[in-house]
């Protein structure tokens, strides 16, 4: 755990970037740079964070940073690690790969899987705004059931995405990683602590951090942190860690806030409140409960 006053004041992710007003991933990027304690080399997959932070000739980054393609952040990080190992500098540097949910869950899953299996020493942070936001809010494997996106629009016949959110941490744990965790931009202390744990691990570590998008989720720009908190407090997004396969719940939610309080302020879920889609709203609630119970059981915390 950390205190705000002890965090560095240097802004390695500096101002002047073009992330949207109230952007969750932007706040996440800032927090990440305050968490890292060693000099860092960043790899960034194509997506919101990459595009909006480096429009030539402007860069918001004050650390060595590379963007190549959409699906290969983990592969590029693997190559950088190999180079540093050859130079004998790998221990002195934190290699961090940033990918959105698009560049991680879907197109980037192969490169991530390869990098995890080969046990490269780096931290992979997936900032999850639950859709391909940079290209205009299309669905990803991280988009939740019932959410309206431009490729799973809420229509008169089909109310949004009818597939469930992929379990990224489960995939990572199956690779035998030393450390994997979920986090949320609203819980800065939990997030920063987890980033530090991930960076300290010898070998690959993955953090899946929920970072709401005012534009894509359709809410007022000042609600980003509030909604991120509700995502956790409603049990929609459980916070937990997995250290060498052992699950540990980071935050017990004995009295969950009703899911509606998280869903109602977001335009992407508005259609679920129409009477004809009542059963879909119930299905989403059922999936949230089921996922919470699954995680709680893995953490040995039934009744949490």
């Amino acid at each position, binding site marked *: 755990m950390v205190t705000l006053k002890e965090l560095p*004041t240097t802004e390695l992710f500096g101002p002047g970037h073009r992330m949207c007003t*109230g*952007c969750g991933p932007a*706040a996440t990027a800032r927090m990440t740079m305050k968490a890292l304690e060693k000099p860092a080399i960043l790899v960034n997959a194509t997506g919101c964070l990459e595009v909006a932070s480096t429009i030539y000739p402007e860069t918001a980054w*004050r650390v060595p940073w590379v963007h190549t393609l959409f699906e290969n952040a983990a592969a590029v990080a693997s190559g950088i690690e190999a180079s540093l190992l050859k130079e004998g500098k790998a221990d002195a540097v934190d290699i961090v790969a940033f990918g959105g949910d698009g560049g991680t869950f879907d197109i980037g899953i192969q490169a991530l899987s390869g990098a995890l299996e080969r046990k490269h020493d780096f931290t992979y942070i997936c900032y999850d705004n639950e859709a391909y936001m940079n290209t205009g809010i299309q669905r990803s494997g991280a988009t939740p059931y019932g959410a309206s996106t431009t490729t799973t629009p809420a229509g008169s016949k089909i109310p949004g995405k009818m597939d469930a959110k992929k379990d990224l941490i489960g995939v990572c744990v199956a690779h035998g990683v030393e450390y994997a965790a979920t986090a949320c931009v609203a819980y800065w202390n939990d997030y920063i602590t987890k980033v530090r744990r991930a960076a300290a691990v010898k070998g690959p570590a993955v953090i899946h951090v929920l970072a709401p998008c005012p534009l894509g989720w359709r809410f007022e720009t000042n609600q980003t942190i*509030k909604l991120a908190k509700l995502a956790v407090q409603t049990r929609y997004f459980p916070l937990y860690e997995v250290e060498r396969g052992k699950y540990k719940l980071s935050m017990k939610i004995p009295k969950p806030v009703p899911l509606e309080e998280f869903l109602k302020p977001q335009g992407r879920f508005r259609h679920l409140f129409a009477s004809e889609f009542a059963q879909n709203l119930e299905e989403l609630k059922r999936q949230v409960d089921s996922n919470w119970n699954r995680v709680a059981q893995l953490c040995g915390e039934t009744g949490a």
Partner: protein
Amino acid sequence: MSVEEEKPGWKSLPIGAVLVTPGSAERNKTGTWRLKRPVLDAKKCTNCLICWIYCPEPAITRGTKTIEFSYDYCKGCGICAIECPLKAIVMTEES
């Protein structure tokens, strides 16, 4: 002189579109984006730094007794006003 003529040509640009100046985005004053600006009631501010950690820009710096806003960069999202536990920040219309 047109805007295009002011930009450097291929002979003088570093190869491969490398950007050698870190943080060069700071020349872009995103404060022009906002419709409302955060105004601090300094008497209420306890320097807890909650607004500082959540600011996406950053447009909040740590002063000696209170936080300070960088109006050059603040986009007016209003997260700071919502999250301040002392309600020391009020979003005010830009004049």
